[in-house]
């Protein structure tokens, strides 16, 4: 089946300049290998969407791939700032970065609404927060039964959804297990989807209600062992917390970041 591709071919086929892209994974299963491939293929003017833009988006922004970022918590968890993202916002380096800022509840609901094929998400949110003053996407509806005002934001429906998962079977069905975040929603709401997996197996060996994405919801599956590092894959490897700590130094300085980019991204490849 053409569904199974190299990561290089998957990104070349399905990720275009100017696309809106969600690479998701809530701490767990962050698709770093796919992000690096996008950097290597020098995609530009991307609109990136992600609840917690951590290192992977710092790297994509620092590499000049991104013009817009939609997010709800931007930082290096437990460590500090995303220096490349800040440099882009504050100094337009390497290019200007527009931001759209939400809360987690808002983005989780917006992904859910996208997967549900709805144009909007309705939730009880943003009460008393000043985020609606600075994000014009945030609107409201009135409940026709109770008169209560509820928050409304547009559903997220990215051009491309990219996630990492534990494994696929030979038919292309994918198991996601552990902290599953919004990964199912990203694949179901996206126009095109790429899933990287640790391995291909004969049988997923799952319980009846496991989080399995059928093959026909996915455009391309690429095997990328350790494709979530320095994030982690439950059952395969742990989070490399030291990498996250060291990223603070690497990313703080443009030169050291660019060196890292050359050696760790452009110097790699052909996954």
């Amino acid at each position, binding site marked *: 089946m053409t569904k199974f591709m190299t990561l290089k071919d998957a990104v070349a086929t399905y990720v275009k300049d100017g696309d809106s892209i969600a690479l998701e994974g809530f*701490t767990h299963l962050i698709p770093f290998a796919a992000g690096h491939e996008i950097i290597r293929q020098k995609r530009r003017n991307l609109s990136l969407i992600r609840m917690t833009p951590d290192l992977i988006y710092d790297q994509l922004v620092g590499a000049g791939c991104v013009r817009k970022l939609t997010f709800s918590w931007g930082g290096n968890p437990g460590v500090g700032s995303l220096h490349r993202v800040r440099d882009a916002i504050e100094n337009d380096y390497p290019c200007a970065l527009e931001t759209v800022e939400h809360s987690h509840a808002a983005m989780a609901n917006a*992904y859910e609404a996208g997967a549900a094929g709805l144009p909007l998400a309705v939730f009880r949110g943003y*009460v008393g927060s000043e985020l609606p003053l600075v994000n014009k996407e945030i609107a409201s509806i009135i409940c026709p039964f109770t008169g209560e005002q509820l928050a409304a934001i547009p559903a997220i429906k990215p051009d491309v959804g990219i996630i990492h998962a534990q494994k696929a079977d030979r038919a292309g069905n994918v198991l996601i297990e552990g902290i599953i975040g919004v990964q199912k929603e990203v694949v179901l709401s996206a126009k095109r989807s790429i899933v990287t997996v640790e391995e291909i197996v004969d049988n997923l060996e799952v319980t009846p209600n496991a989080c399995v994405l059928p093959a026909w919801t996915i455009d391309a599956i690429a095997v990328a062992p350790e494709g979530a590092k320095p994030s982690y894959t439950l059952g395969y490897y742990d989070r490399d917390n030291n990498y996250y700590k060291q990223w603070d130094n690497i990313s703080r300085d443009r030169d050291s970041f660019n060196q890292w980019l050359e050696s760790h991204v452009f110097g790699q490849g052909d996954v």
Partner: protein
Amino acid sequence: MTTHNDTTQYTSAEMMTITAARALTNNMTCFVGIGLPSEAANVARLTHAPDVTLIYESGTLQTKPDVLPLSIGDGELCESALTTVSVPEMFRYWLQGGHIDVGFLGTAQIDRFANLNTTVIAANHPEGGKNGAHSYANPRVRLPGGGGAPEISTNAKEVFITVKHSKRTFVKDVDFITTIGFGRDGKGRDNLPNIGRGPSVVITDLCILKPDPTTKELIVTSLHPGTTKEDVIEATGWEIKFADALETTPMPSEKELHVLRELKARTEKAHSAQEAI
């Protein structure tokens, strides 16, 4: 920081964590923020509240981590959880659905009405923030943003806050209301349907603060041992008031200090035992 090989000595950070831990009781469901709240919540679970239900926004329900998570979604949280749900389900069914007793939050800035700011520190704010949109457009420091806090604060039945006390943090008006306490005028929760009662206690390294029942302004209700009123006044960016019946916070017990130190030692060991970049 003082050394703490024995339990007659302890740091102000330890005092804060242990006091915050005591706010939780055994039968509560607590939506836990990363950092200080997570530390306090797990100390509570490992001391007086073994059955407290800890919930992290990553979807991990009723989790019992052996070491503190560095991120909100560490593997430890999932492996020790009763079950793990999707993030949309976490925010829709468990938080918005009304199953959370306490939201336990940290913050970068807090004001006299317990509003929280984790969005931006403004470049200049002549009389404190008060104009969030202006602050947002003119940041001096860009903070990580709201994350789960804006809806934790309104959808949990009540909110505990723990944060280190300083004039930089305790401001008269936050530069930006990321997460409502009681609003710019203390009346932000009045006459709203389906909203929790908001912050009920703020625990710092100096004292315990609670909102005045009428005005909702935070007042000091208990000073930690060795802390003076002047210490608190000096570290607070508004004219802080003290309760008439001002208490002294009980000292950490031997057991509490032991549990906290063991937890931090296990955490340190677990997080450093990993390969370099």
